[in-house]
């Protein structure tokens, strides 16, 4: 080691260089994510216009021959498979390294993860764009897409495993150098998230490898739709926690800092993440309450465990709100609620994420109805569901990720946000548009309007729906305007934003921090084992029954 004193600027450049790989990998992942969101959002606009009989699919028939349903497949795949997954892998790559304060042990693997997933994305994109995979993002067989669609998605999922591998190797190295220390909170949460996800992908892995790929490539004559559906939801429910937990990481470790305060309780934050690890997977049958061929008893068991997940969710809610209150009071706020006004309402990265939390509170409320076994009969597969998940994944996750990007920009691009005003406008447009859109989608659902349906051309539109549909269009257009503001701001930042030397990343400290964390909240193995046992109990009998009584001869159809 050289002992010559170095000038400060050089030392800072050194800090940035240390994380050069993570910065670039995260930046590229996030770039792919927002390209997907832009195109996906555009499809959303076409949908709300079609709801109101403004059909823009005809003029673009040459590009989008499958019209509404091909567009909706793109909307679903791009927004909740591509945008989320790429953003999450990028963000967690960044957070893991910065939280451990050391680069990932294997930078080559970090690059490989990105290239592998991108290859999968391109393979799946071709059939979707050629209208050979107009099967929605849920691809329920026996709707039959081109085999390359399933192959591409499988590759994307496998790609995500490499991040967990890199994280675990990095954790090992970190433990060697820091014997006895507790894993830093943000790194701990990132690893819990990826671990939960990898356990969750068992379902989709079996669905793809055993049922869909052999069938789509002509090696098997047919498939069993109900078993495939059940395996899909085995992964399909916990995937929502794969989307949500990274947003929680930001709410727990970055937002309190942005607000000028501290996290309320680190032990409680760890409890909630570990409970998500255990409880996210064994509850997926709540997506199949209305399915035939699955016993009521197991549906009820999954319902009860689903409600169990309210517990870590409510803990998160309390912990985050208490942290905001601490920040408000530290900034001189007073009173029962007046502290809210002391928060930094002029900081785009903060405002977006707090709006995301507010929208999520509404989404949580409608989620209780969806989850509630027989109440689900009222809303299942209606526009209500669409209203619900635009508040959850479409806001709690998507809006948080947008706000988080404002915060990440200096680290990833060496430039600051081009326009803070535009950032604030973006946040307000989204919350206003989304409240309108989701409220009226919920109402339409209660009035019986089906989802995934080209309503503008349906022969059976009820008078009760007609008065509600225009508001979905107004809301949807405001949301899209918000997305455009965001994209313009990104583009301008990357090209003309002011250059800055970003300092080191600092995460929020906790009022009750690592010193209060008992050892069992710093271990993963016992929790992983409990998760696996619980999954085996809750899914074993149903999967065994379906696999042993299945008819694997349903040939399938591509009716579009």
């Amino acid at each position, binding site marked *: 080691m050289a002992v010559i004193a170095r000038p400060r600027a050089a030392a800072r450049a050194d800090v940035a260089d240390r994380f050069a790989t993570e910065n670039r990998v995260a930046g590229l992942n996030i770039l792919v994510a927002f390209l997907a969101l832009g195109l996906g959002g555009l499809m959303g606009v076409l949908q709300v216009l079609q709801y109101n009989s403004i059909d823009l699919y005809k003029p673009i028939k040459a590009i989008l021959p499958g019209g509404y349903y091909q567009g909706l497949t793109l909307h679903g795949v791009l927004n909740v498979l591509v945008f989320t997954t790429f953003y999450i892998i990028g963000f967690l790559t960044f957070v893991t390294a910065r939280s451990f304060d050391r680069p990932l042990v294997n930078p080559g693997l970090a690059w490989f993860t990105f290239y592998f997933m991108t290859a999968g994305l391109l393979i799946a994109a071709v059939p979707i764009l050629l209208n050979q995979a107009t099967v929605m993002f849920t691809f329920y067989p026996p709707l039959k897409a081109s085999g390359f669609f399933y192959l591409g998605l499988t590759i994307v999922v496998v790609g995500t495993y490499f991040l967990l591998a890199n994280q675990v190797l990095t954790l090992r190295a970190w433990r060697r150098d820091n014997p006895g220390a507790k894993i830093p909170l943000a790194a701990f949460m990132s690893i819990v998230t990826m671990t939960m996800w990898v356990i969750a992908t068992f379902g989709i892995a079996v669905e793809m490898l055993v049922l869909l790929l052999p069938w789509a490539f002509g090696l098997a004559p047919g498939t069993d739709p109900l078993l495939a559906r059940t395996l899909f939801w085995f992964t399909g429910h916990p995937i929502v926690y794969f989307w949500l937990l990274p947003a929680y990481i930001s709410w727990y470790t970055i937002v309190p800092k942005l607000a000028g305060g501290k996290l309320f309780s680190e032990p409680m934050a760890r409890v909630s993440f570990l409970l998500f690890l255990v409880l996210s997977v064994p509850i997926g049958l709540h997506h199949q309450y209305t399915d035939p061929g699955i016993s009521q008893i197991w549906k009820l068991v999954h319902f009860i465990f689903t409600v169990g997940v309210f517990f870590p969710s409510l803990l998160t809610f309390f912990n985050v709100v208490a942290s905001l209150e601490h920040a408000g009071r530290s900034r001189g706020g007073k009173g029962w609620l007046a502290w809210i006004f002391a928060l930094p309402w002029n900081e785009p990265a903060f405002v977006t994420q707090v709006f995301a939390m507010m929208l999520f509170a509404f989404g949580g409320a409608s989620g209780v109805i969806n989850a509630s076994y027989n109440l689900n009969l009222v809303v299942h597969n209606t526009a209500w569901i669409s209203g619900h998940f635009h508040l959850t994944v479409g806001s709690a996750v998507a809006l948080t990720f947008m706000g988080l990007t404002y915060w990440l920009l200096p680290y990833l691009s060496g430039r600051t946000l081009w326009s803070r005003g535009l950032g604030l406008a973006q946040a307000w447009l989204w919350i206003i548009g989304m409240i309108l859109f989701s409220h009226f989608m919920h109402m339409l659902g209660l009035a019986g309007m089906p989802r995934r349906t080209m309503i503008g051309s349906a022969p059976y539109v009820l008078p009760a729906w007609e008065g509600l549909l225009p508001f979905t269009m107004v809301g949807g257009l405001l949301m899209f305007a918000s997305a455009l503001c965001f994209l313009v701001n990104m583009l301008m930042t990357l090209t003309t934003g002011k250059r800055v030397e970003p300092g080191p990343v600092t995460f929020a400290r906790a009022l009750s921090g690592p010193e209060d964390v008992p050892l069992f909240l710093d271990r993963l193995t016992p929790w992983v084992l409990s998760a696996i046992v619980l999954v085996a109990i809750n899914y074993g009998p149903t999967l065994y029954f379906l696999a042993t009584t299945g008819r694997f001869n349903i040939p399938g159809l591509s*009716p579009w």
Partner: protein
Amino acid sequence: MILKNPEKFMGYLFEVAWILPSIAIPVAVITAVVLTAFAVGLRVPDVAGRIEPKAIAVTEPFDEPGLRELAPGKYQAAMIAQVFLFTPNEIEVPAGSEVTFMLTSRDVIHGFKIVGTSVNMMVVPGQISKLTVRFDRPGEYLIVCHEYCGSGHHVMSGKVIVR
């Protein structure tokens, strides 16, 4: 040790004060739903048997799709879903009747929702879907396919007429 630090102590009190409702709310939801499921009898579809899609034409009750009176005021409606229609797509019953809907699919997955009632189920090829409902109020009830099933999904509908 905790007591020496009043700020931390208050923190613990707050945590406990929040943990209690975080347990009470889920317990209340579970109780309410289990009560309506068992006391009121509002249930979701159960296992109702498998069927070979190629043999629909020779398997009861789908060999003769349509309405059948099982007992006074009690009916069974056997319906087949396929792209993009229900067979039959119209059913007429007197007010006050109890109707058990039995459905299966010839091809892909379809949905079956009768707007304004608690009938809502998926129709999966190879499976029989079954739910029972009472129609008390006369009127026309819209049936929609609410699962994407192909390019004509939005025309797939039917109705129940209650006299």
